[in-house]
């Protein structure tokens, strides 16, 4: 009898924790959804493409060249990935440091987005690096103190650890390890402070990477202020990503939200939208300041100049105004639209700096290969699947009733 109970216990745990309470058969059947079919096809194509890249090298899989050493993987997977994962530090500091407790219901999802964002940034980097297993070298083997990349490497590694600490209480609640959880929660303030400092450093450092290429980056994008641009815009990216992500989560995981503890998502969205609007205006103003400082007004009248204006007006000023008017009208759905526009704008900006405006004046222009695009889509899909896997199992979108909001 006792023996039976012992053998039954692990199966129960697996069923409860991993299979969301389903039996294995039920669980497998529940996976048969159109979304999973699409994701499955992407992985079926994408994973062999990634294998191909490792077997035959970057030349075989990408359109990278001696002139264009960085492409979509650095421009999107790394630069956009890090910027869009900024919700982790922006929301953590809002709630834990500035004490704005009304945002508590979205902080865990934001931290999880950050954690997974960085995880898959590192995955993207592993695909891009010539010798990926040497990724930890800047930390453990050889120190390039004068390199901005060295700063990025250290900050990303440390911040990834910090994000794990910030996220760990949810994991421990899921596992039911109350004592460990209590200790992890005590680290929250320290981790958040460290997270903000490290994020300030590496968000700006990603922009500073381009300071050393003044003749390659188009003068309209090149500015001594570029680290500041990257940092300020990362705050807007973080805030608006939380809006977008909570909107999608709310739609997709609606059964997760407890009706008895209904969260005022509209109120949160309006608050975040207001903050994002102010940040975007600051960003816009700084961009103007940089433009005036460098004095490249004449270049605005070129093809690249038009594209620069599209970015600045269409993807910075426009979302800023959409957000501001939506907040004024107390219309959360318009805030969400403005947030989507902001997120697209951040992606446009990072791709402009890394790809479009980089090497703008050479004949050998870069355009990503199909395999590069497939790899990026695969990595994003893996990110979404992991996010869903965790949200379906751990207390991310809702409180575990056993634990309060104490920290």
């Amino acid at each position, binding site marked *: 009898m006792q023996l039976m109970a012992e053998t039954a216990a692990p199966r129960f745990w697996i069923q409860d924790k991993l299979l969301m309470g389903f039996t294995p058969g039920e669980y497998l059947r529940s996976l048969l959804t159109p979304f999973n079919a699409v994701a499955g096809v992407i992985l079926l194509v994408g994973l062999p493409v990634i294998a191909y890249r490792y077997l*035959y090298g970057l030349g075989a899989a990408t359109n*990278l060249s001696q002139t264009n050493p960085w492409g979509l993987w650095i421009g999107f997977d790394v630069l956009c990935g890090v910027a869009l994962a900024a919700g982790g530090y922006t929301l953590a500091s809002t709630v834990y440091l500035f004490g704005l407790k009304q945002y508590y219901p979205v902080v865990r999802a934001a931290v999880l987005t950050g954690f997974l964002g960085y995880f898959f940034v590192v995955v993207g980097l592993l695909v891009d690096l010539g010798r990926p297993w040497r990724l930890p070298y800047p930390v453990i083997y050889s120190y390039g103190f*004068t390199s901005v990349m060295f700063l990025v490497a250290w900050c990303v590694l*440390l911040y990834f650890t910090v994000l794990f600490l910030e996220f760990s209480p949810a994991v421990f609640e899921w596992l039911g390890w109350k004592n460990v959880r209590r200790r992890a929660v005590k680290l929250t303030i320290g981790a958040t402070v460290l997270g903000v400092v490290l994020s300030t450093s590496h968000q700006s450092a990603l922009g500073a990477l381009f*300071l050393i290429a003044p003749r390659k980056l188009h003068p309209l994008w090149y500015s001594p202020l570029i680290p500041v641009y990257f940092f300020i815009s990362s705050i807007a990216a973080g805030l608006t990503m939380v809006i977008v992500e909570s909107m999608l989560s709310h739609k997709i995981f609606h059964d997760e939200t407890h009706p008895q503890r209904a969260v005022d998502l509209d109120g949160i969205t309006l608050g975040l939208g207001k903050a994002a609007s102010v940040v975007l205006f600051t960003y816009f103003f700084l961009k103007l300041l940089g433009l005036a400082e460098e004095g490249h007004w004449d270049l605005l009248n070129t093809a690249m100049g038009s594209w620069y204006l599209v970015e600045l007006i269409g993807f910075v000023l426009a979302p800023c105004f959409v957000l501001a008017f939506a907040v004024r009208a107390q219309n959360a759905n318009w805030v969400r639209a403005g947030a989507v526009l902001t997120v697209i704008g951040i992606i446009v900006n990072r791709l402009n700096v890394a790809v479009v405006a980089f090497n703008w004046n050479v004949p050998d222009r870069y355009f990503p290969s199909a395999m590069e695009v497939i790899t990026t889509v695969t990595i994003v899909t893996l990110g979404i699947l992991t996010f869903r896997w965790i949200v379906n199992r751990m207390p991310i979108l809702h409180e575990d009733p056993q634990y309060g909001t104490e920290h």
Partner: protein
Amino acid sequence: MKVSRRSFLKLCGATGAASLIGPPANAGAAADADESVAMLFDTTKCVGCRACEAACSEANRLPPPALAGEEAVFDHHRTTDSHTYSVVNRYPARAQDAPVFVKSQCMHCVEPACASACPVQAMEKTREGPVIYHADRCIGCRYCMVACPFGIPKFEYDKALPYIRKCIFCIDRLRAGQMPACAQVCPSGALTFGKRKKLLEAAKTRIYQHPDDYVHHVYGENEVGGTGWLYISKASFEELGFPANLGNRSYPELTWPYLAAEPLVLVLGAPLLMGLHAFTKGREKAEKSDATDGKEIDHATDG
């Protein structure tokens, strides 16, 4: 250097390193530059025989140069690549002059952008002058390629386990007391090997003595803070495919102010945020106790 590295680690865990070890990579290099080894290339003397290319390939155990001995090689301008560290290109003749040949390879900058950009010090500016490459450290991030204003570091895109490749000024030959292979074989006197200061003097003397044969500029004297390869020419350097308007500021200086500000963010950021937190926490407590005080008063008046 060692002490400051250690103290930096203690202080702020690596990220703040930059400002504590003083100015970028090779602050001393500028002072040592005069005595560092260098090369003078006189484009008026080069006959385009490409013996230097062949010698380069042999010395670096690379495949022999493309179209060896064939005139057709000059039909298109070539660049160096992962298996060619040095190329000679022909530029069309002006008026009654002969066509001009220009050899290109790593410029061995006095303060190299690649070495300052490398996160693992795989690119190193040696005390002797050459910028060399430590393959055992390279992670393949290709930031050196982004940083180099001359587009010199080349990546082995065709390999599954790639390295960066570029001219290393025949550092092994140099340390064995020989000159770089290209200079050794040059039959026309276009290449002169020597100390940078001496070569600069020689270049300026040639310009001074033959003012009509040269533009009055030594390319590499001041460009990007000075380079180990110096060029003199009759045709303007822009015509000969040299990157123009690179400026005289060294490239590491472009990122230096940013990196120098970094420890400040780390050291001041944390206490500032902790203070802010303490402040908001204190205010919350005050608000809470205010609220309870209020209730008690209400209660008292009710009673």
